[in-house]
């Protein structure tokens, strides 16, 4: 009887230890196609958290890539046809963004479009960065195009190319693209609240 209790207790201990080990290894999965450490802040209604749920979404990060190749699609694969950044972030000589992308979504071909369709400059790469690193990048004038906080808020809340994320149209198969997980008005309010309260970046 005493042996039975001993085996039962030992089994529970082993199970708990294995459970922790598995959970720990699972959280260290390194996916370079999306920003890492997506859940640094999880406090409900925290403006930084709401803002970052959007900025780490594929609709933003696909065009803030690390390197000279844009990404596309729900799985953030490299843009088809070997499309490249080019010197002005609008593609190369005979393969420009404007060769296919125009000022609005094309519902027939499934090619997305918005004014000023282009890649973010290489200094503004977000792919592979944590939420905190993205925020630090946004506030760093050496990397953000020398923008003030006011100008950053304007870009994040008014730029048509940014707001396209909530009207991303359909893909080449006619399937709707996924919009960011936070409604547009809540995101805009969160960005403004975060900036007005001092643009504080939480610690990692």
């Amino acid at each position, binding site marked *: 009887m005493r042996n039975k209790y001993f085996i039962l207790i030992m089994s529970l201990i082993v199970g708990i230890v294995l459970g922790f080990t598995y959970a720990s290894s699972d959280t260290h999965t390194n996916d370079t196609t999306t920003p890492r450490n997506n859940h640094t802040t999880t406090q409900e209604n925290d403006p930084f958290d709401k803002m970052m749920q959007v900025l780490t979404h594929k609709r933003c990060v696909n065009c803030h890539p690390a390197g000279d190749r844009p990404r596309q699609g729900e799985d953030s694969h490299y843009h088809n046809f070997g499309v490249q950044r080019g010197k002005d972030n609008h593609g190369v000589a*005979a393969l420009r963004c404007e060769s296919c992308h*125009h000022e*609005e979504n094309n519902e027939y071909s499934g*090619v997305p479009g918005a004014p000023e369709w282009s890649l973010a400059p290489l200094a503004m790469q977000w792919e592979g960065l944590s939420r905190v690193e993205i925020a630090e990048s946004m506030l760093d004038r050496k990397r953000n195009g020398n923008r003030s906080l006011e100008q950053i808020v304007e870009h994040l809340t008014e730029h048509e190319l940014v707001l396209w994320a909530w009207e991303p149209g359909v893909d080449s198969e006619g399937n709707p693209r996924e919009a960011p997980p936070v409604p547009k008005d809540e995101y805009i309010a969160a960005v403004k609240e975060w900036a007005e309260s001092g643009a504080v970046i939480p610690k990692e």
Partner: protein
Amino acid sequence: MQIQFTINGKSQSVDVDGKTPLLWVVRDVLNLKGTKFGCGKAACGACTLHVDGEAVRSCSYPIKFAEGKKITTIEGLGEGDNLHSVQQAWKEEIVPQCGYCQPGFMMATAALLEKIPNPTDEDIDNNIVNICRCATYYRMRKAIHRAAEINGAT
């Protein structure tokens, strides 16, 4: 809606739905059949033509954006005894097999040579990404270098 533009040097006005692809206007309204329909998704490049000198995939170009612009199709690039250097090179190297996709390739190449007169193989790989199901890529590469030579860029 009424849209005015220049095509192959001639002023043109059409009255169509603004979302109509430029390709349909070129082929079905203006009866210029040289520009081809391939995929309809801006993926294959068979429909490539020039809008204000830039290579554009016309199957995915709403005609309303053509207002006031200059459009060039394969017919406007050169015809008969007055061939463009790219068309001449395509003939010399006997590039086409079935030929369906070739106008798009020639238009993309003409746009490339305007900006990079003597492209390297890498430039060609990076810029000319149309699709040819006959796999004439090897002869096209030779023709692109030959066109640069005809233009005196080499």
